[in-house]
């Protein structure tokens, strides 16, 4: 279940695929509960990855590598590609 989605979203992609320096808008966060009971999707939203928020890929690790530095609103968070892949975005 995607928590919120834009009706027609042709350019929908996951955040981990966003190129360095490119921006987008969060479209949704896929539900994911970790083995230790942490609700990862809710946590990502609490950090600001909420549908409608503007995001930008500031820094990617070495090619193919972790982690990613992502600007969301006015904050910057480091995520691994695994978490970033839960976030679907509409690239600008």
């Amino acid at each position, binding site marked *: 279940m995607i928590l919120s989605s834009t009706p027609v979203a042709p350019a929908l992609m996951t955040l981990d695929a966003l190129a360095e320096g490119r921006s987008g808008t969060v479209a949704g966060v896929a539900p994911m509960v970790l083995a230790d009971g942490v609700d990862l999707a809710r946590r990502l939203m609490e950090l600001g990855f909420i549908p*409608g928020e503007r995001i930008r890929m500031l820094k990617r690790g070495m090619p193919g590598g972790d982690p990613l530095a992502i600007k969301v609103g006015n904050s910057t968070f480091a995520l691994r590609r695994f978490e970033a892949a839960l976030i679907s975005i509409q690239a600008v």
Partner: protein
Amino acid sequence: MAEDDNIGAEGQVQPMPRIALLGNPNCGKTALFNRLTGARQKVANYAGVTIERKEGGFTSPAGRHFRVLDLPGAYSLSATTPDEAITRDVVAGLRAGEAALDAIVCVVDATNLRLNLRLVLEIKRLGLPMVLALNMVDVASKRGIVIDTDRLAKELGISVVETVAVAGGGEKSLLHALDRMAPFRKVVAQPLSAIDAVPVEETQQEVRRILAAVSNDSGDTGNLSERIDRVVLHPLLGPVILALLMFLVFQAVFSWANAPMDMIMAGVEGLGSLVAAVMPDGMLRSLLIQGILGGVGAVLVFLPQILILFFFILVLEDCGYLPRAAFLLDRMMGGVGLSGRAFIPLLSSFACAIPGIMAARTIQNSRDRLVTIMIAPLMTCSARLPVYALIIAAFIPEQQVAGFFNLQGLVLFVLYFAGIFAAMAVAYVMKRSMGANSHQPLMLELPTYHWPHLRNLAIGLWERVKIFLSRVGTIILTLMVLLWFLSSFPGAPEGATQPPIYYSLAGMLGRALAVIFAPIGFGWEICIALVPGMAAREVAVGALGTVYALSQTGVELESSLQPIIAHSWSLATALSLLAWYVFAPQCLSTLSVVKRETNSWRYPLLMAAYMFALAYAASFVTYRSALYFAGG
């Protein structure tokens, strides 16, 4: 209304109002707390857990005395981490042993309301008296962010004040607002389900609506921090900068500390001669000079080096570099199965493994956390520094290598690196044996850079001085006196050929242990020092001070420890002892914290066993190869 609410109608003293500062991580909450309370803080732990609890007091302009609690930073009261759970429980009045709060001061970063206001809206649902401190308004206005404070107060339905925690007087508006809120009536918080019931998206919609009404802030703006990060987080430049910074720190620890160390040394020696001059020769004089001044002085002398190390850690933390270091190292740490998040606990462990092990609580995954705890004591803590510094100064010549590297600093760097390398290897083995290979989230905030603030730095360093001096004054002093007794009784028999300590209780123990430690080059004097050194590593230096002061016949304290060991140990023994201290679990407090944190005896025992095994093996190899190369 009474003039002073602390005094009731009959002159009875009412309980002081208790308030708490609450906010996102990195909102300047602790700076505001320091501003309110100054150095008058009580730092302890929350009952039953090892999360730091900071409490202080202050007096408002109207003369009211307040007690204030600095709650752990939280992104949400839904509480994912143990820190957040504490904050949630204290605010909701659910934490046993914590009296209910009279008011909450919600601290927000004015430059990042988009993130910070969500927590404010969550807390509002609890229905407690609260005031919003719009912090860092100076930075916001510099960036051209305009916030309509009155409108914000109206939208939120609570009073809003502007604060600048890093400037003198920047807290005044908050004090006045608290006075206006008095007298405080007890309000019972709404159940926490009021918070969890609302989806995050709904809260954020409210935030957006409020932001649109009160602020011109458009959200994503490129700023200086991003430009700095382009260099600092660069895949090639970033690690180089990190390595240079770390190297600078270790060089500074050695080269800056000389003058103050000489001063402390001279002071202790002066005191020793003074005592020697005014007191008649006897048992008490020996206890004072050899036992207390010799032992405690030998430890006290390392205060400057410890302060320099903490100075750098605090500066790097305050300016926002530490999470960047975690970012850079995430990949490398991922290679051995750890999260980049483990970097902060591990870095704290360079100061002391105990706060490091506690900081591991921010790691959500229990396996990652356990591995981080198990390797934390391999990071070179500041208590090893006295031991390293003593041996390096005595055995490593002070010369330049390749033009500008100080050889002593280089050896210190190698010792630190040996600990890190061993930690990574142990982590790799542990992760393999636990067979875990699941994805772990990182979710680490990279806060905006800012200049480290002198006042916060001074308060942070003052905390360390207090902790160090109270250790010197309690554990170390006690052990030194005890050691002096063990080393002085029974006295030497008639016609003794060895110094008196050889025949004492401590001497007997040392000689017994020397059988085990002879293969790695430790004589009985070192073995005596290792025993009290179990309680805390730096005690070994004090103990050596006492042991050698007592084993030199007729020698006053003026002849300090360093030249004595320089002529009584071989280089192989010195290197072997350095290797021993890289690995040996010589710290009972660490083991007891591990017991408390893991809630089992299994892990502290496992830790002690693997670290002793590593220490013995490393010392054996070091000693034997040093002998071989020295002999060949």
